[in-house]
């Protein structure tokens, strides 16, 4: 397990397990890289990456130019989106995307105008040596670059490991271990110089001391191209390392193990051990963004398998429907059976040719029944232990299977379910054809949902408790108010009986009554009965007199 492999200069390490499988790479390497013609319609999903959906900047009817920003990353873990060609936004609608669920997601639907005109407001190229890592990171974030190896995690986040972590080694992943896929191979052959140039930018950003480019030895042309580019550049910090072909050497943690002998801790990131790993295609996208001011709007996609007439690699713009790629590659053979996004080991079947190709789509594999026979019905586990022999993460797949099957999620987590990289080695070797990875995926998403529910219920409890407290407080305040006014009333009452405080109103009334009584007394003394005409004014008396006259008919 810790045995070293002889390489020309550098010692290499093995990871545990792994598989030697037919690579079928030659199928798609028969013809050179081709650019795809513009499709009739582009469907650009807003969510093409891990993280939050970016904020949409366009609406139906807007004219867009190639490379124009159409969605802006609102939160830190999100990615920008650019118009892949010039044209009109015809709709913002829900469409089925490349997700294994087959569910819809919001997409920007663009009708190309055929002119393919670049946006005039693209940023100027940067000289990376005079820029700070923050400025370069900002540009990479603007360009909407995500990990193109398949994980689609926003690259600007990965390139900012935090001030407390020093990065010694940059590892460039050119292993491309999954059978059939050759898009990275083609990229390394055609754009080796840009890869070296992009590496220098990233090394500058991370202040890394060395860079190792790991390429499997089944890609001699790619290795040769990279070495030539390196000779022309003469940077002693960068080294191309030929690694043995074994699946899954292209897994991030597996490649780090092969090249450095270090293990990335469970639940940890490579940055914890001073390493950052990027895919070759991501590096080229970074080079494009910095040196040419271009956003990420296209990528190389391999279309391969016995089900397609002209397998090969195509430069595909973001949002191209799969059907267009298939048509351009000569169409399907009559015996084509399954359409897989990704490779045969980790990919998932797609049902619909309308589904758009996105930043993370590296391969469309069209297989026939002879090539990949339909999966046989699973039978009982015979506890042969082959799965544990091949597991590259040294897990116990059989134990995980039992726990996932019994829905014992806590136990599955105790057996490090979340370290599983879903490489599919265990399912591949299982003599009982048990879909092991499906069980692990089920258990993982089930645990995530549980955690989310727990978080939500804690939040609801907090809100409920807050509401209870608020109602109690309001009740207490009301009571306090009532008590106060009652007390004030009682105080007043007691004050009145003591004759200490005199109410001015009461006093005025009393005084008026006194005056009236005195007047009455005076009149009685004078022998006059009190009449209501007794204290009228002159005017009023005249009016009464006039009224009397009218009454009597004078």
């Amino acid at each position, binding site marked *: 397990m810790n045995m070293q492999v002889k390489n020309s200069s550098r010692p290499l390490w093995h990871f545990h397990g792994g598989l030697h499988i037919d690579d079928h790479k030659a199928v798609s390497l028969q013809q050179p890289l081709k650019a795809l013609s513009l499709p009739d319609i582009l469907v650009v999903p807003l969510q093409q990456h891990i993280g939050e959906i970016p904020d949409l900047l366009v609406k139906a009817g807007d004219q867009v130019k190639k490379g124009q920003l159409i969605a802006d990353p609102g939160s830190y873990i999100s990615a920008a989106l650019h118009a892949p060609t010039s044209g009109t936004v015809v709709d913002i609608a829900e469409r089925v995307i490349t997700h294994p669920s087959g569910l819809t997601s919001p997409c920007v639907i663009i009708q190309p105008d055929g002119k393919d005109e670049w946006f005039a407001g693209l940023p100027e190229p940067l000289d990376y040596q005079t820029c700070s890592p923050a400025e370069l990171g900002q540009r990479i974030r603007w360009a909407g670059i995500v990990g193109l190896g398949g994980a689609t995690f926003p690259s600007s986040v990965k390139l900012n490991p935090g001030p407390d972590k020093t990065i010694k080694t940059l590892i460039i992943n050119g292993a491309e271990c999954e059978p059939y896929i050759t898009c990275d191979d083609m990229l390394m052959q055609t754009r080796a110089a840009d890869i070296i140039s992009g590496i220098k930018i990233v090394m500058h950003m991370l202040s890394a001391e060395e860079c190792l480019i790991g390429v499997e030895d089944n890609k001699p042309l790619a290795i040769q191209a990279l070495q030539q580019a390196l000779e022309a550049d003469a940077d002693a910090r960068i080294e191309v390392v030929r690694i043995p072909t074994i699946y899954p050497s292209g897994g991030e943690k597996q490649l780090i193990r092969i090249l450095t002998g270090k293990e990335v801790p469970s639940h940890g990131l490579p940055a914890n051990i001073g390493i950052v790993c990027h895919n070759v295609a991501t590096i080229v996208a970074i080079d494009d963004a910095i040196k040419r001011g271009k956003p990420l709007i296209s990528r190389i996609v391999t279309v391969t398998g016995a089900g397609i007439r002209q397998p090969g690699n195509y430069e595909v713009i973001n949002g191209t429907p799969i059907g267009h790629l298939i048509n351009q590659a000569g169409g399907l053979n009559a015996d084509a059976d399954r359409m897989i996004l990704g490779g045969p080991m980790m990919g998932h079947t797609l049902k619909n040719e309308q589904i758009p190709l996105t930043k993370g789509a590296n391969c469309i594999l069209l297989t026939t029944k002879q090539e990949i026979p339909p999966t046989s019905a699973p039978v009982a586990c015979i506890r042969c232990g082959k799965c544990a022999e091949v597991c590259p993460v040294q897990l116990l797949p059989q134990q995980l299977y039992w726990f996932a099957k019994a829905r014992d999620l806590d136990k599955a987590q105790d057996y490090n379910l979340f370290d599983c990289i879903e490489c599919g080695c265990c399912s591949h070797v299982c003599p009982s054809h048990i*879909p092991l990875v499906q069980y692990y995926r089920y258990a993982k*998403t089930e645990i995530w949902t549980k955690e989310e529910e727990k978080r939500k219920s804690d939040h*609801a409890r907090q*809100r*409920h408790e807050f509401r209870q407290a608020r109602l109690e407080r309001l009740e207490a305040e009301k009571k306090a108010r009532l008590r106060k006014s009652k007390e004030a009333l009682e105080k007043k009452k007691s004050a009145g009986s003591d004759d200490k405080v005199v109410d001015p109103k009461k006093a005025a009334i009393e005084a008026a009554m006194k005056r009236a009584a005195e007047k009455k007394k005076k009149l009685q003394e004078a022998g006059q009965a009190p009449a209501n005409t007794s204290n009228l004014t002159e005017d009023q008396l005249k009016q009464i007199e006039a009224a009397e006259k009218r009454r009597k008919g004078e």
Partner: protein
Amino acid sequence: MLTAILTITLLAIVFGLILGYAAIRFHVEGDPIVDKVDSLLPQTQCGQCGYAGCRPYAEAIAEGSADINKCPPGGEITMIALSELLGKDPVPLENEEAAEKPKSVAWIVEEECIGCTLCIQACPVDAILGAAKSMHTVIESECTGCELCIPPCPVECIHMHPVKQTISNWKWPYPEKASSQEDAA
């Protein structure tokens, strides 16, 4: 004889003091079992258990006056978790129909709302926003789906909408088809 009595008495006093000190020093505020039970409940505050909310039900479970099968939103999973926590035998749910309902959130038909604030007063988690004689609306992310706002509404403008499945809340399915054949083999 006397020595023995004295020794035992002395020991009793010493241990009594230690126990007395420990009782004060390690005193536990409140009943931790209530918190544990409460943390397992789904916090919808719906009252379907017959208690005024999740915490009162948790208190009733802790003191043994309520069964563990009265929580329909929690379903069988919650019941089993409670049985494991309390060492009780799992029992079938009291209201199984209610437990099988899909997770829903309240939805106010805004054109019909008369702004009476009755639903706002009924909501246990303050998830309804609005003022007197103004339209009300439900903050979807805060709604627990307890349905307590539905009976007070005088114009019946509140409906329950099942939570839509999206890419972010989608789960890989349990490999059902496979399992039956594996078991048969």
